């Protein structure tokens, strides 16, 4: 795998080079597989939602470069988070499933930390085109020690504490240039975001939004996530061709590194008795602030730059959301009281 990865650095543009997550790519007309499965799947209830996910899943898979790996990773991360809340109400979620999903989240986070430790190496601006890939290149090896997360490799230097991964403020400001006003309108007001933070969405406020959106209308979140992914997918593809591309994806990634006080760890406090609830193992040590869920780039802006491969599907999947962004779907069956509690804690802190 490592060898393949290195090869891929040079042949990033080739859509068919052997790639780490290439095997996730559908081998047949794009999307038909997923559409079929999701359409038939017993668990999902909302067609629009599914379509959104389809676009979300499949578009990263088509990305030929290393960036597709991170997109894949983020997609999986998002799905995993969703799954943790998506179990049937009143039934105890399968512990096995919860543990497996939780392990997945931990690993991704571990990997992110690993990458984060590399971050300071790069200067925030004027990246050579290959540099983002260089940082990604380290990711698969970090991932390679799946079976024993505790025995994490230190070949990249010791795992740095999370604080070390904080993105320089300059990068945060750079983000603003990409958080255009065109950005997908947040479904919930960001009134809770601290004033000190950038006016545009940062991880903290987006996490808050996320929580709020979990509750009544999450479609817009999904749409937003799909938009983010599509935007990123596009930018990564475009990045290879346009000079400003790398910078854009760079900024995107830097957002991933945001580490802010508010994160899902708070949820840990909602579990009272270990035997009684699974809440306490959820997010026990998952720091979701490593990831952003919200778009900071405009979907409409990037849609025009879309690669021909995925443009059709993406437009198709995004269409329903632009027409009715707040559909009454509710894939996250979270308890309202639980949300209230979380909000209380968040505000209190």
């Amino acid at each position, binding site marked *: *795998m490592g060898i393949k990865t290195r090869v891929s650095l040079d042949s990033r543009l080739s859509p068919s080079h052997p790639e*780490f*997550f290439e*095997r*996730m*790519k*559908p*081998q*047949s*007309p794009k999307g*038909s*597989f*997923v559409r*079929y*499965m*999701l359409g*038939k*799947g*017993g*668990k*999902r209830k909302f067609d629009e939602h599914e379509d959104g*996910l389809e676009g979300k*899943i499949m578009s990263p*898979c088509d990305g030929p470069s290393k960036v597709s790996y991170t997109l*894949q*990773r983020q*997609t*999986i991360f998002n*799905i995993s988070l969703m*799954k943790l809340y998506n179990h049937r*109400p*009143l*039934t*105890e979620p*399968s*512990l*096995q*499933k919860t*543990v*497996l999903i*939780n*392990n*997945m989240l*931990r*690993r*991704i986070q571990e990997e992110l930390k690993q990458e984060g430790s590399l971050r300071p190496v790069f200067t925030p601006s004027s990246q050579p085109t290959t540099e983002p890939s260089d940082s990604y290149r380290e990711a698969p090896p970090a*991932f*390679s020690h*799946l*079976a024993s*997360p505790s025995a994490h490799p230190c070949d990249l230097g010791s795992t740095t504490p999370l604080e070390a991964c904080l993105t320089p403020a300059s990068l945060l400001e750079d983000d603003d240039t990409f958080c255009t006003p065109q950005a997908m309108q947040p479904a919930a007001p960001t009134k809770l975001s601290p004033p000190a933070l950038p006016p545009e969405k940062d991880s903290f406020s987006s996490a808050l939004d996320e929580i709020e959106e979990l509750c009544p209308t999450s479609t817009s979140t999904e749409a937003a996530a799909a938009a983010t992914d599509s935007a990123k997918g596009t930018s990564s593809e475009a990045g290879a061709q346009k000079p400003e591309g790398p910078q854009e994806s760079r900024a995107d990634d830097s957002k991933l590194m945001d580490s802010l006080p508010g994160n899902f760890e708070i949820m*840990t406090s909602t579990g009272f008795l*270990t*035997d*009684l*609830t699974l809440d*306490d*193992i959820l997010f*026990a*040590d998952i720091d979701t602030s490593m990831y952003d869920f919200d778009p900071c780039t405009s979907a409409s802006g990037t849609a025009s730059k879309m690669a021909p491969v995925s443009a059709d599907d993406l437009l198709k999947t995004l269409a329903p959301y632009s027409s009715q962004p707040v559909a009454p779907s509710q894939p996250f069956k979270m308890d309202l009281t639980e949300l209230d509690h979380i909000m209380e804690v968040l505000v209190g802190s």
Partner: protein
Amino acid sequence: RLAEAANAGPVGGVERDASVRGDSPSASTHTPPRARAPRLSPGALPRAPGSTPCDQRPGILAPRPPSAPGAAPRAPHPRSGRSLLGAPPRPPARAGSRARRRRRRSGRRARPPAAARRTPVAVAACGAAHGPAAGLASPRAPAPRPPPRARAHAPLLFCQLTAPPPRPAAPAADQGSWCLCQLNGAADLEVSEADIISTVEFNHTGELLATGDKGGRVVIFQREPESKNAPHSQGEYDVYSTFQSHEPEFDYLKSLEIEEKINKIKWLPQQNAAHSLLSTNDKTIKLWKITERDKRPEGYNLKDEEGKLKDLSTVTSLQVPVLKPMDLMVEVSPRRIFANGHTYHINSISVNSDCETYMSADDLRINLWHLAITDRSFNIVDIKPANMEDLTEVITASEFHPHHCNLFVYSSSKGSLRLCDMRAAALCDKHSKLFEEPEDPSNRSFFSEIISSVSDVKFSHSGRYMLTRDYLTVKVWDLNMEARPIETYQVHDYLRSKLCSLYENDCIFDKFECAWNGSDSVIMTGAYNNFFRMFDRNTKRDVTLEASRESSKPRAVLKPRRVCVGGKRRRDDISVDSLDFTKKILHTAWHPAENIIAIAATNNLYIFQDKVNSEMH
């Protein structure tokens, strides 16, 4: 929504009616009012006569006898009787905040207060099941022809497509020539959740076959003795008894429902005329005894035919009661209830070869029980970390060694097997052997751990090997080699490229089971699209077969199916993209001695027989 309402209408109506006039003739003719739920009367229906060859029957869907109690396809669906099931109405004081949180079912069933809850309900359920079981066992013998309506899996029709393949002129022998022997289940497009079969198990002789479903019911099939007149009916399994094993419960402490779904059934070795089996849902294991009665005493001195006391003045002479033959009745009664032993969900049970103990495994612990003692069990494995945040691994399955009563194995969600020896310590936290395969770096992905999670583990009959199933493969392990499996078979490797989607739609968490044939030479396991796979360990041949109404013509030998991955596609091949992931075969069982297999496909039970190689390979 409209459809729902329409469906709910009659059901609700019936229920209300019944509860209002519970003792009216219509409600009480067949079952006492409290136990009106039709499913509670084990085998209350005349069983299908097994001797009729299927091709003489009218069709797949035999007509429902109008007289069958509660047999209307949907109307008094088993669940509708629930409100009548014991359980005093919940005091209004409790109806407050919790009521809001309870959505399903709660409206239909009054729940007792928390404190009184667990045991009383269990008792009520058992009592109810017991009553009719004892009283209403079905006339088994020459039932008037048709009502082949097995209440088994509710709107389920019992239909036998059994057919007489006059020894077809032979496909490759090692692929077998499996043909459909019979098929139980409704052809409905709409499958009720409760009817989905959740476990299948042959007993030790293969004479009986038990299935459990998500509705908490257990259906036992009995193999018809081979008759000279109708050789084709050989291997035909007829419904022998049906009973409600588990009821849904509500855990008030956790505010969680306890599903009635039967997770596993295990037969006990037969020790006398009666058969016994263990059935379990997520929390509670029950021991059931199945007995037959075909004689009844007649001629009591003090009681008349109906059991009423005679007027003593009419008794003028003494007589000796005699046993008179009568229609065979099958009685099922709960003998033991092993409750409160598990905090997590029970995923497997296994009867020890000493025939006195069994173990039950949940996600984090394994308990050892004595079959006769319900109030205590011994914890033999506990992998629960002190801090649940450190939890990264759970137990997924476990089984006793078939011959050595001190050995058992359990599998984990990280893909390892641990063999434990109970002689070493009371608490087998330290395994004796750890079977683990190093990860193949070329197949590494985000999903490596999930797909390596073992969903089933089975000792071979010989006790020498273990068979494990993970998401994409089945593996055979030699007890003497821990480093890696001696054989690995790909079940559906073409899904490797789809893992992301399978993760997204939760299919990746499906728990496929696996089975050995009687001579340990062939292994079988399920897949998607109603496919199941067989691997011949000697010839290394494998075959994909399909359990479907369309392709399983009674007389025809099952045609091997192929899933094509790339562009080259032969006729009859099915593309990876058109696999139906809602049709999955998770549960399969192989007759302990013959080439008969039982395949649970959603709500249908298929029984296939290899007529050519009817003896062992």
